[in-house]
């Protein structure tokens, strides 16, 4: 009896990776999924934080895909290692701070290492030629194979017939005739295949599943780097970029102001790490100060926070200021009028 071959499939939670894994599994290959967590994954974080979204059914799409496929899923934390990809992408950024090609190379490379440790035979991705402007082009497909070290052990079942034969095809582990030759940005062939395979209600993330493709998010990340004088971030930094209203009134600090109750609750978890401001005389948001500040900066921040409180038209608003491990203190300020808020402060 022939040995059952084993493949690891990169599962993003989207339709293409779901189909690619299924197509190979249907050929009798043992498939397990792998999903990488970079910290920039969209994956319902906003829903998890914002109170108004609390009632929305939230699911992790990669887990959902694996459940539908009936395969194991290994979720790998690559937050630390991924920083190098974001700081210095050899192939550059896309329209925003998205290093898509380097990202794909990195993930396939990590999958290759994972597969080698567990004696898996090859790697599957849901890539389709022409689907993405940066990482999924005919000329970049060989770059991913080569630079990841996966070479001909990387199989793209959805567009394999447009590409040279890979090891799994040559060895007869999979039948090339039962793979596909999809290309271009159209989603119709994938949607038709999904119907044929009985998949409904699959995830269709608008604009991808990574915050780095988002223009507003990239502006905030660039601001973070500019303020630090270098490309550097920690996980808390990039999580906080997803939350609240960000204003930088001075080069040395910015304020993150919760926009609603859920965000306020989320920011509360950071009160020991940052100076925080909370209105006490009037209802208002919780805000954090990120940066090194003096008393004048704190007063400026307090006036801004007061502006976003229910006391914005009052003569004075009292706030509680908590800083790191210091005891909270009280500060009373005049809310900043709209004309004093420089639009440039908004990130």
């Amino acid at each position, binding site marked *: 009896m022939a040995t059952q071959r084993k493949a690891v499939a990169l599962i993003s939670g989207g339709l293409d990776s779901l189909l690619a894994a299924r197509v190979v599994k249907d050929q009798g290959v043992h498939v397990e999924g792998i999903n990488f967590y970079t910290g920039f994954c969209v994956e*319902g974080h906003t829903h998890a934080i914002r109170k108004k979204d609390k009632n929305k059914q939230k699911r992790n799409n990669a887990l959902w895909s694996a459940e539908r496929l009936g395969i194991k899923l290994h*979720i790998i934390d690559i937050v630390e290692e991924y920083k190098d990809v974001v700081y210095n992408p050899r192939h550059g950024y896309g329209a925003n701070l998205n290093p898509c090609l380097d990202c794909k190379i990195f993930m396939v490379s990590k999958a290759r290492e994972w597969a080698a440790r567990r004696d898996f035979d090859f790697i599957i991705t849901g890539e389709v030629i022409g689907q993405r402007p940066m990482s999924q082009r005919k000329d970049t497909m060989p770059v991913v194979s080569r630079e990841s070290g996966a070479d001909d052990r990387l199989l793209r079942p959805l567009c394999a017939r447009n590409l040279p034969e890979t090891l799994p095809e040559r060895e007869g582990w999979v039948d090339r005739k039962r793979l596909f030759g999809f290309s271009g940005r159209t989603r119709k062939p994938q949607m038709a295949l999904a119907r044929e395979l009985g998949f409904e209600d699959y995830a269709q993330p608008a604009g991808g599943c990574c915050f780095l493709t988002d223009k507003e998010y990239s502006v905030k990340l660039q601001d973070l780097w500019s303020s630090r004088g270098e490309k550097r971030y920690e996980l808390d930094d990039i999580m906080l970029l997803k939350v609240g209203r960000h204003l930088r009134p001075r080069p040395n600090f910015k304020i993150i102001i919760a926009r609603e109750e859920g965000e306020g609750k989320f920011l509360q978890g950071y009160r020991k790490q940052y100076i925080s401001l909370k209105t006490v005389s009037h209802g208002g948001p919780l805000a954090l100060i990120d940066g090194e500040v003096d008393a004048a900066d704190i007063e400026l921040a307090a006036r801004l926070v007061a502006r976003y409180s229910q006391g914005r038209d009052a003569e004075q608003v009292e706030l509680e200021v908590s800083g790191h491990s210091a005891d909270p203190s009280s500060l009373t300020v005049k809310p900043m009028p709209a004309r004093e808020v420089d639009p440039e402060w908004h990130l």
Partner: protein
Amino acid sequence: MSDIQVDARRLLCPMPVIRVQDAMEHLRPGDTVTAFCTDPGALNDIPAWCHINGHEVVERREQDDEYIVVVRVGASG
């Protein structure tokens, strides 16, 4: 049998799942992991991960704004 406690407070999914997964890696069948989370998504995601990886969810509950999930390592996990 041992029980490992995982503090996944303040973490957003899938980090609580990753923490549980990593904690279970070196445990034996029958051992349990209790995860303390603040992201309500953990109530769905940790059981979904257990389901596909052959582990059992013993308990899931909400308590004082926290979500607690207790899972038992399966034989094939």
